[in-house]
């Protein structure tokens, strides 16, 4: 088990910058999730940590020691791939034991280690089979077993659940998280799925276009997004962004195109001046149906679509010409085509600079 530091990593292919000055550090036992849309460089960063890819400048340290120039096998890491990458000609037992065999571990010790991992993953009955005879979920377990058996300093996961169906994905998600808690392992996990990121991580690094957008705990990322991209990428349905201008001696926000005035959220009050153009960020769950005696600020909307999901209903509505998505508990009295009044919880609301998109 070990800590990991990624220091000023740059990666260029000719004039194309794939990764730009990435700085991330995690402690022993943390679960770091690299998340972002496809092409954001997250998988490249993982390959660089693994030593499968070169970087242009910067350094990686594991346990305080630079791994510059070390072969993948010398870095004491293990990796689980999206396609599982099992060796087709070997049995499950040989697949899991291959790295130990390569490090010349005696056979009896090797088989014992493989057996222990097989028990942990409940795949002992599959040990004599070949990958071609396994289901997707079983292959996934074997791929995990191959990583676990090495007891490495750091586990690297490259979108390991993307090839599974929805139900299995949720199961394996829980299982990986359980394993993490049980082993206390340091994990770097790449995904494009923001729900996987939120549910599993102790730290999230959100990336876009090779640039680290924000690095923090899931709560940081969700409640205090650093910019508009993070705010809309994390969370489903995404955060509402309402263009507004600061008015009334920096007391209030006038929502553009909506004929609504809301008080300036206290979190951001210090950073703005009268007349500043901003974006007001409101998570759908910060809106609720206003009761008659509410003291919260309110927003009058016209309900366009209602989407029941079971525990919640998503309400797509319009205030003036602005789209507003709200998440209300099932059973809320709301009807399509009618007007409604939302009470707005501004205690967590975030403001972004309308020009730069950065949080204020």
């Amino acid at each position, binding site marked *: 088990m070990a800590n990991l530091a990624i220091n000023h990593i740059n990666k260029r292919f000719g004039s194309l910058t794939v990764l730009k000055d990435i700085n991330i550090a995690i402690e022993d036992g943390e679960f770091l999730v690299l998340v972002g849309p496809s092409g954001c460089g997250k998988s490249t960063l993982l*390959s660089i940590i*693994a030593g*499968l890819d070169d970087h242009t400048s910067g350094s990686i340290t594991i346990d305080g020691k630079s791994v510059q120039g070390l*072969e*993948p*096998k010398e870095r004491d*890491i*293990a*990796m689980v*791939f*999206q*396609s599982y*990458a*099992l*060796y*087709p*000609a*070997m049995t499950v037992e040989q697949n899991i034991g*291959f*790295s130990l065999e*390569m*490090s010349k571990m005696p056979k009896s010790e090797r088989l014992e280690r493989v057996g222990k991992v097989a028990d942990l993953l409940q795949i002992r009955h599959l040990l004599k089979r070949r990958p071609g005879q396994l289901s997707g979920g079983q292959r996934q377990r074997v791929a995990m077993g*191959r990583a676990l058996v*090495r007891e490495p300093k750091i586990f690297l996961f490259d979108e390991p659940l993307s090839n599974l169906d929805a139900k299995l994905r949720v199961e394996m998600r829980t299982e990986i998280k359980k394993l993490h808690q049980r082993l206390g392992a340091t994990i770097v996990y790449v995904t494009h799925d923001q729900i996987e990121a939120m549910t599993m991580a102790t730290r999230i690094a959100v990336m876009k276009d090779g640039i680290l957008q924000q690095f923090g705990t899931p709560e940081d990322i969700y409640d205090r997004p650093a910019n508009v991209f993070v705010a809309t990428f994390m969370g489903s349905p995404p955060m509402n962004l309402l263009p507004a201008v600061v008015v009334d001696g920096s007391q209030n926000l006038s929502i553009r195109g909506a004929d609504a005035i809301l008080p300036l959220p206290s979190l951001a009050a210090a950073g703005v001046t009268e007349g500043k153009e901003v974006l007001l960020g409101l998570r759908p769950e910060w809106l609720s149906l206003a009761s008659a005696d509410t003291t919260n600020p309110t927003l009058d909307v016209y309900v366009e679509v209602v989407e029941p999901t079971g525990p919640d209903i998503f309400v797509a509505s319009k205030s003036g010409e602005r789209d507003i998505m709200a998440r209300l508990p099932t059973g809320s009295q709301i009807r399509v085509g009618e007007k409604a009044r939302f009470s707005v919880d501004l205690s967590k609301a975030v403001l972004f600079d309308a020009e730069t998109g950065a949080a204020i």
Partner: protein
Amino acid sequence: MSLRLDAESAAMLGPGADLRISRILGRVFIYGCLIILAAAFLAPLISMLFTSLKSMDEIRSGNILSFPQAITFEAWQHVWGSACIGVTCGGLKGYFGNSFLIVVPATLLSVGFGALNGYIFANWRFKGDNILFGLILFGCFIPLQIVLIPMAGLLGQLKLAGTIPGLVLVHVVYGICFTTMFFRNYFVTVPAEIFKAARIDGAGFWAVFLRILLPISWPIVMVSIIWQFTGVWNDFLFGVSFAAGSSQPVTVALNNLVNTSTGTKAYNEDMAAAMIAALPTIIIYVAAGRYFLRGLMAGAVKG
């Protein structure tokens, strides 16, 4: 009469019967074509086999495609053991052995080197790798005739001129272009993640090749072996150019046998000799042809 009956019964059975009749007619047409084509392709082989089993008297009196009246293996025995080729009269058997001495090492070496080359080109990057692969591919398109004279010079300098090892070398060098291409194109269809996983697991250059990739490449190994075996076995030009006297392969000996016979042409012996020379490649195709087809398609269906 029967036709009319058929029409009547068809009418009684309704429109479904019409469909059935036209389907049967279609089948008859397809099988008819296939049988005619198969006969056209097999006729020469059958004629060779039959002629080789006849005596000269029967050949003179009979039809070229008729079944032999009195089967005799005299012609086979004679060309195998005692026919005169050039000035020696030891039959084809020594040359047949030569061909094996050439084809076995030439096939194994060219397939082995091709597999190794293909693995390197598919999985390892080095400076100028694409240019080198392009040059090796180019080797597949060089006509045999062009290399004859420089190759003769090279074999002379290596003191291998006119020997079986010299001929093996020529075939290995020429075959590597093809086998390298086969293996490289096969290995690039193996997911790159398997190669990465093996590197992380600590497998080196040889372990990845021998433990991970080779065990899953038997279809392309079969293709390469069949390709090289038939190519080298059937080669005449290199054999006639670079082998001398007692080290000649069977194809060259066959030519000499047929051309040196004096007096009446012994058709039965010529046919028997040709059958002997062709037999190993026929056996290889019959035994392993299905792997050949499967191997050729392996890359295509995996995607």
